[in-house]
């Protein structure tokens, strides 16, 4: 066994060079500012203070709002879809899951360009509307277009974990619930949904996290300069060239994301080891953690 441990060394080097080092650099950039020559740094927290300007905070809040909206709609569409697929024959399930996965094989840029041509002024939808005698609609470069693009791109990541948790569920639990007098609706809410919660939480994580930091989709479908926090960071690095401020904003976003993840995992632990099933108990503990 001991010999094999040496085999992880290349991996550790890769991990350090490609993940740890860049992150350390971001931290370094975030807490410094240039002073005179390029090689001399000054430590400062001004980059962070600079961000708490109402204009910038508004961008952050908007990102979270659109991220939450995307996640909510993905959940509302994704759960029934996953449930319906899980009820199918096994061979049908394989095909349906494949159909949901196939779009993710195509580059995200391509898929998003397709939406540009569908939503644009002379695109598919407007052409159809005009031919039916309606007037043109401004679809592209709206928040709606951004949310639509994100839902389209991220919904497989909501459906797949929920589907997995539903198919892994012991079928005899459903039968036991019927046997004890619960009708199908009661069984769904008291048993099926609760036991699929881990899949739901994974789905929420996998949609919400990329959604709040997404910058390609808002750029192409939203059009605006500072539409979302992802674009804001990108601009700081590429257009403005203020790596220090960009790094600080990245760190703020990362910290918020880490807090969010911690909450999700904590909540997941509670639902898995739920000792008391009284209504709202899980949520109460969730709120308590939030206060800390």
């Amino acid at each position, binding site marked *: 066994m001991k010999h094999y441990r040496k085999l992880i060394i290349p991996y550790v080097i890769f991990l350090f060079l490609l993940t740890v080092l860049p992150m350390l650099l971001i931290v370094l950039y975030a807490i410094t500012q240039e002073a005179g020559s390029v090689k001399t740094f000054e430590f400062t927290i001004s980059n962070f203070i600079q961000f708490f300007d109402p204009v910038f905070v508004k961008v952050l809040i908007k990102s979270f709002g659109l991220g939450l909206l995307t996640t909510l709609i993905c959940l509302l569409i994704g759960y029934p879809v996953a449930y319906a697929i899980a009820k199918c024959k096994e061979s049908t399930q394989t095909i349906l899951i494949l159909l949901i996965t196939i779009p993710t094989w195509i580059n995200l840029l391509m898929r998003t360009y397709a939406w540009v041509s569908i939503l644009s002024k002379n695109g598919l939808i407007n052409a159809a509307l005009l031919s039916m005698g309606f007037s043109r609609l401004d679809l592209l470069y709206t928040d709606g277009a951004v949310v639509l693009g994100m839902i389209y791109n991220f919904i497989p990541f909501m459906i797949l974990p929920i589907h997995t948790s539903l198919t892994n569920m012991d079928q005899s639990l459903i*039968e*036991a*619930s*019927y046997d*004890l*007098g619960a*009708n199908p609706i009661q069984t769904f809410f008291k048993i099926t949904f609760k036991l699929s919660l881990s899949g739901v939480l994974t789905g929420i994580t996998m949609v919400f996290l990329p959604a709040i930091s997404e910058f390609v989709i808002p750029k192409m479908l939203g059009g605006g300069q500072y539409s979302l926090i992802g674009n804001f960071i990108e601009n700081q690095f590429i257009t403005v060239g203020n790596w220090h401020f960009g790094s600080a904003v990245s760190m703020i976003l990362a910290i918020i994301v880490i807090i969010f993840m911690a909450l999700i995992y904590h909540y997941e632990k509670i639902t898995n080891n739920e000792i*008391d099933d009284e209504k709202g108990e899980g949520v109460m503990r969730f709120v308590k953690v939030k206060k800390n």
Partner: protein
Amino acid sequence: MKKIFELDNLSKEFDGQVVLKGIHLDVYENEFMTLLGPSGCGKTTTLRIMAGFEEPSEGKVLFDGIDIAGVPPYKREVNTVFQKYALFPNMNVYDNIAFGLKIKKTAAPVIKEKVTRMLELVNLAGYEERNIRQLSGGQQQRVAIARALVNEPKVLLLDEPLGALDLKLRKTMQIELKSIQKEVGITFVYVTHDQEEALTMSDTIVVMNDGIIQQIGSPTDIYNEPENRFVAQFIGESNIIEGTFVKDFLVAFDNVEFECVDKGFEDGQDVDIVLRPEDIKILPSGEGRISGVVTSIIFKGVHYEIIVKTDIREYKIHTTAYYEPGLEVDLDLTPDDIHVMEPMGTY
């Protein structure tokens, strides 16, 4: 006694595969009935039809005299103990047991009282707050039984509930289950492939094979008077011998005529004769009606298993006495030891 369940000419097909072929079965109030048979014999399917999880392809299911075809499981007055318990992992012991009562909107104090009483019945008092994952197999089993019984069903259906437990625990649970059944006075329909379990607990045993009921009877009837070769071989060990039914109370095999307690077969008809290994008596040479030689003796714990070879066949005999291989002995039987049944293939 009152009939609770009547299964009338029940058949079931799954994708063209016939698993039940015309089952007729009456279950009476307060009895402990066991469906016994090898895997794939249709015993579990029969139970699932009673519970409402499967609909019969043909035939009727009457419950309290009323046809319950199409009545979903959640509207039936029966409860099931599942093979792998199927306890809800997201609830503790108390909530698992209280599930059925909560669904029926029973008042909270009543639920508490009933659950507490059930936990006492299954020897789990004080386990209310336990997570079901912290329980041993035997404890989970008790929770599953309590969860079903707390609803006071008219019939409790049990699908191989002791299958996952080790031998010793299984024996303890067999006795406990039987005493619980006596205490609550509910009809139990119990599915198992373990013949010993069936003999220990049941009032009535239903032996099934290939989707057909082979025999229905009390444990003693099934053991002592098996109706055919399958039942004789499935329940306990036996010597099965082809012989002739000379006339009422007289059969012939191995060139000897024996008195027996059976009647009602045709005179001169071919029959199968079951001799239980523990019923055959070994006597000193010259004192019995069949002569042979001891060819092997194996120690089995409580008894020895001895093979005695005669001119015609080998007999398997269980005895507590030791016989040297090579010893010449005689065998003999009393009328009670001889069980006559229809020959193979005619049932």
